[in-house]
């Protein structure tokens, strides 16, 4: 997966601002950190063994792509990333890969926190509410699926 944009992580869910300061503000999903995060996959796909899992694409398709990378692509290891709700799917894909390899593959999981920034803009331009930003933290997982080195 070499798409520079939309690394394939689960889309940022809509948030519902509770405060009524800007009356019925439209939730504008333009997170600053999101752009930064998009830089990362541009580097990683250089090696082409990174797979970002999302909830939109069919599960089987993502699993098939991982398998193709491992078997056909000749990569000794791939890294499966998942953010938020896609963590479950990423774990499932990794475990499935391990199961279908009859135990030849090993998993190594790392977790991290990703900051997501939401920009809130008032829906009604006449309203005096100023655009606000809100920062959220989200969990992410990075699972390395690899053939262990023969030692």
């Amino acid at each position, binding site marked *: 997966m070499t798409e520079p944009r939309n690394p394939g992580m689960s889309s940022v869910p809509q948030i519902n601002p509770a405060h009524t300061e800007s009356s019925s503000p439209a939730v504008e999903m333009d997170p600053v950190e999101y752009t930064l*995060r998009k830089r990362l996959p541009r580097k990683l796909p250089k090696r082409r063994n990174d797979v970002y899992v999302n909830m939109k694409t069919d599960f*089987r398709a993502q699993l098939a792509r991982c398998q193709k990378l491992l078997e056909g692509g000749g990569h000794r290891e791939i890294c499966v990333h998942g953010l938020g709700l896609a963590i479950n*799917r990423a774990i499932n894909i990794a*475990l499935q890969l391990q199961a279908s390899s009859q135990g030849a593959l090993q998993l190594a999981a790392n977790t*991290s926190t*990703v*900051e997501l*920034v939401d920009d809130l803009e008032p829906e009604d331009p006449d309203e005096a509410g100023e655009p606000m930003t809100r920062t959220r933290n989200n969990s992410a997982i990075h699972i390395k699926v690899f053939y262990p080195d023969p030692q």
Partner: protein
Amino acid sequence: MFTGCGVVSGQNQHLTNNAVKSQPGLEVNKPIQFENGTNQGTNPVFQGQTYTNSVMHPEVFNSVSNLQKPAPLPVSPPAIKLGQDGFKKVCRTEEESPCPFPGLPSGVLEMRVKEGSKIRNLMGFAMARMQGEKAGSGGGADSAGLRQVVFTGSGRAVTKTITCAEIMKRKVGCLHQLTKLRYKVMKEVWESNQGGTSEMTVHRTVPSISILLSKDPLDPREPGYQPPEAFSALWEDREGAEPAAQTCKRPLGSLPHSGFSHPKKPCLGRGSFSASSSLTS
């Protein structure tokens, strides 16, 4: 739906075939289509619970749980489509525990994160243990967490487990982390809505995660090891060049700004700067 299935053994299909012959009817045809659709070459161990909105798919009828004979099976076909028809009534879920954390720790605090757990409560308890023990030089009089704590969760609670671990790492710095993934088999018992005689035991495999946080250094060669908060430095390094692959497995794989030790403001500043530069490039 293919993704909605659990493990379907061969015997299962035979059983339902017999059921079909004995009881013709529309309802019974359902499992056939469903089973045929799912019974492909490999034996997938997907977790329907996670990916479809329907709650559960009782699909696996192990020979162990032979509570029902083929006769009640005609009742179960609608149940296969899920508990919404006919099996709504009672679902007592029991969990099979394969084995605890695949390793070493002897006297550690084990936090079991469930789907409905409140993070506030979990963290309050865990932090009290971890930070309380810190003063006590880890002398093991207390049976609780001393220097290590394990967060375990399965199914829908996996994300919450990871979040708890991340929060603890942020509050208690310099924790070594070891993450293990495996499947966990859960046993659920469903009863029929009409005619409470037929019971079904469903074995469902769900992905589960166990995160060990330790103040003591762990073995870096262990798969799933993550050193304490080296992310910010590594993130800067990898902007220039890929840091050498350490013995530990890709701590740099973490995404930017885990924000452990530095406040958010500089993160955002850097972020926006980099964003603008990336847009222009």
